[in-house]
């Protein structure tokens, strides 16, 4: 069983690697965020494959989102999502008041601009997991006050 800390160290190193030659331009940053998100997507798909082998089919979309918030988040981040809101029209906001992967970043305001780098992989993770559960989505995230963050999931109707 690999330790959580090991994943966090790896996650940080992956971010450093992706950004190593970053010039800081908008396009470059966007490309890097996409790379991280895509990596997360593939990992999310793989995770779900092993996760839900024994579980019964989900009742509905909300059921799936609750699974993500409770079981999935607990297994990946050792805690549940603190708050789930939805407009019942395909938009869900998942709030994590103490997001594990932001814990390495200092809480100062000057680090806020780097926060998206630390959220991209997880956005992909969620999107990939949902994808393997038959749900197409767009996942974004934002930080208002460290280390709390919100993941917004927009379900795409096929």
């Amino acid at each position, binding site marked *: 069983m690999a330790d959580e800390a090991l994943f966090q160290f790896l996650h940080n190193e992956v971010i450093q690697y992706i950004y190593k030659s970053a010039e800081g331009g908008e396009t470059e940053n966007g490309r890097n965020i996409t790379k991280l998100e895509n990596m997360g997507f593939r990992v999310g798909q*793989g995770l779900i494959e092993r996760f839900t082998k024994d579980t019964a089919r989900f009742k509905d979309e909300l059921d799936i989102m609750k699974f993500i918030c409770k079981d999935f988040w607990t297994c990946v981040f050792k805690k549940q999502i603190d708050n789930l809101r939805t407009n019942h029209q395909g938009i869900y906001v998942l709030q994590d008041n103490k997001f594990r992967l932001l814990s390495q970043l200092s809480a100062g305001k000057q680090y806020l601009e780097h926060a998206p780098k630390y959220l991209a992989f997880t956005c992909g993770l969620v999107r990939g997991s949902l994808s393997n559960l038959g749900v197409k989505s767009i996942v974004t995230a934002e930080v208002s006050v460290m280390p709390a963050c919100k993941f917004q999931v927009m379900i795409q109707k096929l």
Partner: protein
Amino acid sequence: VLVLSSYNNSELFTLTYGALVTQLCKDYENDEEVNKQLDKMGYNIGVRLIEDFLARSSVGRCQDFRETADVIAKVAFKMYLGITPSVTNWSPAGDEFSLILENNPLVDFVELPDNHSTLIYSNLLCGVLRGALEMVQMAVDVRFAQDTLRGDNVTEIRMKFIKRIEENLPAGDE
């Protein structure tokens, strides 16, 4: 109520590691470059991981290389990867040994494609060990001697003690 099957967290690490290696193979032209990059990244992780390890394991200063080997195998590997490699093949001088991993969690479900025969998939581990030990004043050489991904029966990591690194004391200290 949904019950998860026997999920353990190593999947997240293993899958992420796999995604990283895939990305590196895309970014670099040959296996040698990927191996180097994995080692470098491992080193960066190692120099930080050691602090985490020392804080959580309450292991004291090792008296000699033999003790170091035992701590690495029985405490560190257990803590971070959930496995306990065996320590064998000591050199007569006692400065080199092997870690034998019956199974390597990093390579679950991994198969090397044909065009990557010289890829040292788990090379991150070598860097981690090297970086971590450097922070406790030991310069070591770490390499894979056997790799199940390349057809060997076991995975063998060979560690060689090079020298003690002098601690940098600020000028003026006795």
